[in-house]
């Protein structure tokens, strides 16, 4: 349980953090502030400032990812495009390269592969675009995973072996698919998910009773977990069966494996929850947000009558008793090795990025 109070960064006011990605040493963060631009915020003297603005998109930027391996940023948008941005050390500018996703519907999410040589973009065209850089033509190319998906893709995550991806879609199914690109990837097989893995091979498909908002692979790749709109967290270690944890709370939107046996997930409840593996099943252990300590106990009576007088409001508590005041949309790792993450960061609709210590 977190003993330290979390670090709250209110970087946006009145606008949600649609998506965000920190760079490898957490000095900068690329943010889409519910806008068509990607803003790069850098921490200067303890405060966050906008360092650069990447504007090429025409519509809302729905996904941003920053590769720790290659320092490249990829952004996808509802304008059916994706751009890869590279930082030029000499000028300090970000140079963009358009990626022809060849899709006819909005892109919804994007993730760099662990090695940073490919990225997967989910789209509303019921497909996932696996994009890679073709050296001979100096272009980013896209191949499509579309045989098995039957609705808008809501989330993607990569397996640590750089070949498999898991995706959650609005048809209430989670799938593990192969994103093998012949020209880039070495031939590989996987003990859990299958031996023959050509592109778009369906390795596993799991059904839930709600739209699948978030998927994640465990650090070793042996388990895949997803959260669905029916307020459940599900974990699977094999192709056929999975364990369901029903929470009595509002649906979760995003999850993160902080170790092989512990998951942190958050969503419409505005607080992160911790789940742990117990023998062969999982259970909800605790919510990690006990609320900021309110020191207004002495003044609350006076405050109440003041509110009644000036605002005709008998009830003074508009704020929620948690650090986030609105839905948490994404959870990402902040510090620590993949098998033992010590800090994670949550971004929400209230414009806050909160760093939590475990």
């Amino acid at each position, binding site marked *: 349980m977190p003993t330290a109070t979390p670090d709250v960064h209110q970087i946006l006011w009145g*606008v949600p953090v649609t998506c965000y990605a920190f760079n490898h040493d957490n000095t900068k963060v690329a943010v889409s502030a519910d806008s068509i631009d990607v803003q790069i915020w850098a921490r200067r003297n303890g405060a966050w400032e906008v360092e650069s603005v990447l504007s090429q998109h025409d519509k*809302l930027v729905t996904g941003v990812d920053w590769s720790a391996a290659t320092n490249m940023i990829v952004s996808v948008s509802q304008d*059916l495009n994706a751009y890869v941005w590279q930082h030029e050390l000499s000028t300090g500018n970000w140079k963009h390269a358009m990626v022809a996703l060849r899709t006819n519907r909005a892109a919804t999410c994007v993730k760099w592969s662990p090695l940073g040589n490919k990225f997967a973009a989910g789209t509303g065209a019921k497909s996932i675009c696996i994009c890679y850089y073709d050296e001979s033509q100096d272009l980013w190319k896209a191949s499509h995973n579309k045989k098995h998906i039957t609705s808008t893709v809501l989330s993607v995550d990569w397996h640590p072996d750089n070949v498999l991806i898991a995706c959650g879609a*609005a048809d209430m199914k989670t799938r593990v698919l192969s994103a093998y690109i012949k020209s880039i990837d070495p031939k590989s097989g996987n003990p859990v998910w299958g031996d023959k893995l050509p592109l778009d091979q369906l390795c596993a498909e799991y059904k839930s009773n709600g*739209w699948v908002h978030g998927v994640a692979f465990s650090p070793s790749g042996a388990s895949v977990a997803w959260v669905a709109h029916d307020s459940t967290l599900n974990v699977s270690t094999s192709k056929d069966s999975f364990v369901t944890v029903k929470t009595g709370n509002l649906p979760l939107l995003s999850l993160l494996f902080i170790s092989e046996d512990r998951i942190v997930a958050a969503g419409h409840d505005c607080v992160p929850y911790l789940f742990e593996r117990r023998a062969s099943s999982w259970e909800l252990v605790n919510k990690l947000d006990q609320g900021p300590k309110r020191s207004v106990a002495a003044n609350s009576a006076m405050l109440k009558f003041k509110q009644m007088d000036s605002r005709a409001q008998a009830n003074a508590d508009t704020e929620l008793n948690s650090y986030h005041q*609105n*839905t948490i949309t994404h959870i990402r790792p902040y510090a620590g090795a993949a098998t033992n993450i010590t800090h994670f960061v949550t971004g929400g609709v209230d414009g806050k990025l909160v760093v939590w210590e475990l």
Partner: protein
Amino acid sequence: MSNTLKTYIAAVRATLTAAMCLENFASQHVERHNKPEVEARATPEVLLAPVVISRNENEKVLIEGSINSVRVSIKIKQADEIERILCHKFTRFMMMRAENFVILRRKPVEGYDISFLITNFHTEQMYKHKLVDFIIQFMEEVDKEISEMKISLNARARIVAESVWRNDLAGRFRFG
């Protein structure tokens, strides 16, 4: 009668809180469009099953949800003809000013008196729990308002009738 009101309101509040879990969803049907799916109804898999919560056959609430929008329709209790007219005028007054109201729909859903349309853009700008509080408060107060209007209407009618009668009596039955 008021003990059913509490459970009715609690059921509506719980359903609304769950239905207001919305997120941005670009249209799967038309490229570059972003519409409230509960109104467009083009993609069946993103629509939730509609829920009707009724207190009795005259008062009920229909909640239709989807991935990026929720439509709440309320049928207000109207016991007699006067209440029906008052309710109609009251809701018409509000619906004509739906733009300023933000979450109000210009036309009620068939079979109901007033409808709200809440989209993910509204939940991004406003607190979800306060939106739910607002709708619940509206439901509780609209009955009170219509009763008050009816009482004042009756009182006014009585005063008018009395004064007409009095003038008429004075006019007709005066001798000389």
